[in-house]
């Protein structure tokens, strides 16, 4: 019997490929921002300035005659830049995909070349045993077949790369001169206009989602460039599209206002620029950070960007991870003194939480900080004394949580986390508006709001209301406890230098202390190894620090790993003395939360 063995060929080399798709995406984003700037100029010259009422009669006619062409040209440039941006962004996406395929091809090629060489060795000299010859033949045929598949993939990859390059080249050649731009785009209706006109009038996020889904891809891209403030801040629109729009707004503010010398900026311009810079730093922090399990860079999603909200305090929300697809999503609400310039540290908090969630086994997570309400800060810090800002903030937070639920069609796990005054805000959102959160975490809480007498009132079930309070956290002692408050008993019952102050303040907080046994929430361990010996402020700002009990437990809650949450004894208030916190006698631990 004759056995014919054909040795597999050496696979062709994978070509060098060092194109950086992400940088091309960045270039596309910059072009889209430029398009937005031209659109603003076109709208201003052609609309707002003309209709301001400052000019009438001959002056108005002269204005129209002189400036309308400029407005039309600016609009044409905007459309031309948008077309270029869309082409470059699409090319960037394709390059990112091509890079992944190239990496796989290179890996396949190395493996197949090694296997082909090994088979050549096995065939020289040829085995004498027939069974061994049959095995060698089968292995050679299999390897040849795999090499043919590799070669076929390589051809397809090369064709796709050329097609992508041809497409973007053709798009960019479409309008190279100003004359060509005017010939092609002047007077052309902006697809954003019709899309904007069809937007639902109310703020029902489900109606918004249905409207957004009904738009064409061209209309969505047009709206992102032409109306980034609307797209970026409307609940119900998917997070990726919101982020693309907010990136346009943020980058536009940085470019336009950064170009104005500091001493020539108006107060409003300076405020907007300061807030934009703060958001930019937060975005950079997120994008520089990495997953502790994979070492892959995080991506930031800018979910809200409204730098002039609340009299210049600003609104911003930013996520680590993909809010559209993550299995587990958390929203962290900060408290006292929070404004947009606090974005830096709030970004760090959600980076830490994401890293801890990943380290504890979470594989699909998005953690967002939400500076979306007018928290007590600056001149209005006295607002901490009342629940008004928390109640108003609770309504806004509920809108955001409803928006997240509306934009998702799947059953994801949503955790609302409030720190300090933010915990009162979260409690108000839950008790007053019942948004669809699965778990609630209250950190260093000065009180769960006057509307919540017990954990059940938050509407997620008392077993899903988690409380982290460091026993020496001064703010965590502000909530009302027991059948008679220390304030009624009088100062001096508590021990320690701050005891008198705390006694005066206790019962003057913002509702029930959620760490108390009467409230009925699940208290988790949240002590710090650097815990102070008396009630203090430093222990109020450690909950998101790496290697702390609170961060490890929050990560488990965000991951839905309830059995891994380490429970703590609740605060108890006996009739004969002030509240007793069993956690104050426990030696704190320092669990690893990021592997470093």
């Amino acid at each position: 019997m004759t056995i014919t063995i054909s040795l597999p060929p050496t696979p062709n080399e994978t070509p060098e490929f060092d194109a950086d798709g992400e940088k091309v995406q960045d270039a596309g984003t910059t072009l889209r921002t430029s398009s937005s700037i031209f659109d603003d100029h076109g709208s201003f010259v052609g609309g707002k300035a003309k209709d301001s009422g400052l000019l009438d009669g001959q002056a108005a006619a002269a204005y129209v005659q002189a400036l309308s062409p400029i407005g039309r040209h600016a609009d044409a440039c905007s459309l031309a830049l948008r077309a270029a941006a869309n082409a470059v962004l699409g090319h960037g996406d394709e390059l990112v995909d091509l890079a992944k395929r190239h990496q796989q091809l290179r890996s396949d090629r190395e493996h197949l070349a090694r296997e082909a060489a090994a088979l050549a060795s096995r065939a020289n000299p040829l085995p004498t045993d027939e069974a061994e010859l049959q095995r060698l033949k089968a292995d050679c045929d299999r390897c040849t077949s795999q090499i043919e598949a590799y070669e076929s993939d390589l051809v397809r990859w090369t064709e796709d790369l050329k097609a992508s390059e041809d497409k973007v080249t053709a798009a960019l050649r479409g309008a190279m001169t100003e004359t060509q731009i005017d010939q092609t785009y002047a007077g052309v209706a902006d697809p954003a206009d019709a899309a904007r006109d069809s937007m639902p009038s109310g703020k029902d996020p489900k109606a918004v989602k249905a409207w957004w889904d009904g738009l064409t891809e061209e209309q969505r891209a047009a709206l992102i460039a032409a109306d980034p403030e609307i797209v970026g801040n409307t609940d119900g629109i998917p997070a990726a599209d919101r982020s693309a729009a907010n990136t346009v707004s943020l980058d536009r503010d940085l470019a336009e206002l950064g170009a104005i010398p500091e001493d020539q900026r108006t107060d409003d311009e300076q405020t907007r620029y300061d807030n934009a810079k703060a958001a930019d730093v937060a975005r950079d922090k997120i994008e520089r950070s990495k997953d502790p399990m994979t070492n892959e860079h995080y991506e930031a999603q800018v979910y809200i960007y409204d730098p002039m909200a609340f009299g210049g305090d600003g609104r911003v929300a930013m996520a680590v991870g993909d809010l559209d697809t993550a299995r587990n999503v958390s929203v962290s609400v900060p408290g006292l003194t929070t404004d947009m310039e606090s974005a830096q540290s709030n970004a760090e908090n959600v980076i830490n939480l994401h890293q801890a969630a990943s380290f504890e086994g979470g594989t699909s997570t998005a953690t967002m900080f939400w500076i979306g309400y007018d928290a007590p800060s600056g001149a209005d810090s006295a607002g901490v004394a009342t629940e008004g800002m928390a109640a108003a903030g609770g309504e806004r937070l509920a809108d955001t949580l409803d928006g997240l639920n509306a934009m998702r069609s799947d059953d994801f796990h949503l955790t609302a986390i409030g720190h300090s005054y933010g915990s009162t805000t979260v409690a108000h959102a839950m008790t007053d508006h019942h948004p669809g959160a699965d778990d609630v975490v209250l950190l260093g809480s000065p009180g769960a709001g006057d509307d919540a007498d017990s954990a059940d009132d938050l509407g997620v079930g008392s077993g899903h209301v988690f409380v982290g309070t460091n026993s020496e956290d001064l703010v965590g002692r502000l909530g009302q406890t027991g059948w008679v408050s220390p304030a009624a008993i009088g100062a001096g019952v508590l021990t320690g230098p701050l005891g008198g102050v705390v006694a005066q303040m206790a019962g003057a907080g913002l509702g029930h202390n959620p760490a108390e046994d009467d409230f009925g929430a699940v208290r988790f361990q949240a002590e710090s190894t650097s815990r102070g010996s008396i009630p203090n402020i430093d222990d109020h700002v450690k909950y998101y620090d790496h290697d702390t009990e609170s961060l490890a437990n929050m990560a488990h809650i965000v991951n839905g790993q309830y059995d891994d949450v380490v429970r703590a004894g609740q605060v108890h208030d006996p009739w004969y003395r002030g509240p007793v916190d069993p956690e104050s006698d426990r030696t704190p631990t320092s669990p690893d939360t990021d592997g470093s």
Partner: protein
Amino acid sequence: MTARILAATAAALTIMLAGGCGGVSDQTYTELEHQRDDVLAWARELSAVASTTLATSPEDATEAYDGVAQKGTSDNYKSYKYDVQADFVTEHQEPLDALHDELEEFSPTFSSNSLRLSHGDLTAFFQIYPKGPGKVGMFVEGPAIEIDQEDMSDWDGFVVGEPVDLA
């Protein structure tokens, strides 16, 4: 009710005062620059050792001033540290063990997935990743320097995630 509001306002004031005040001198900026120079110099030294030991070169090297401690209950930072991070892609099977042997002068200690080092008041660690085989991360940083967030943001030397040359 009035008494409650007064007491709570007092609490708010206590909390606000605990935040302290800002203010910065040229000396602080000089200190920040010195720390950057010291950290960069050591990062380059460690990078050279890692490149030789792991038969590779640093990738994705970036520098930043990162916030450290916050002001009282404020979400704004009151101190910053300079740090450098970089990656090394290697086929070495036990990269941390190999680095440990080459970096004994910096008192290396193993901790979870990392190898920690110290050099005066500077610290560093090399880290491996359970789901990222073949990658070793390097982090080098200085101690916290007190500077208000606003002053830091206004400083020309403030960077977050800028590329840096470790050659």
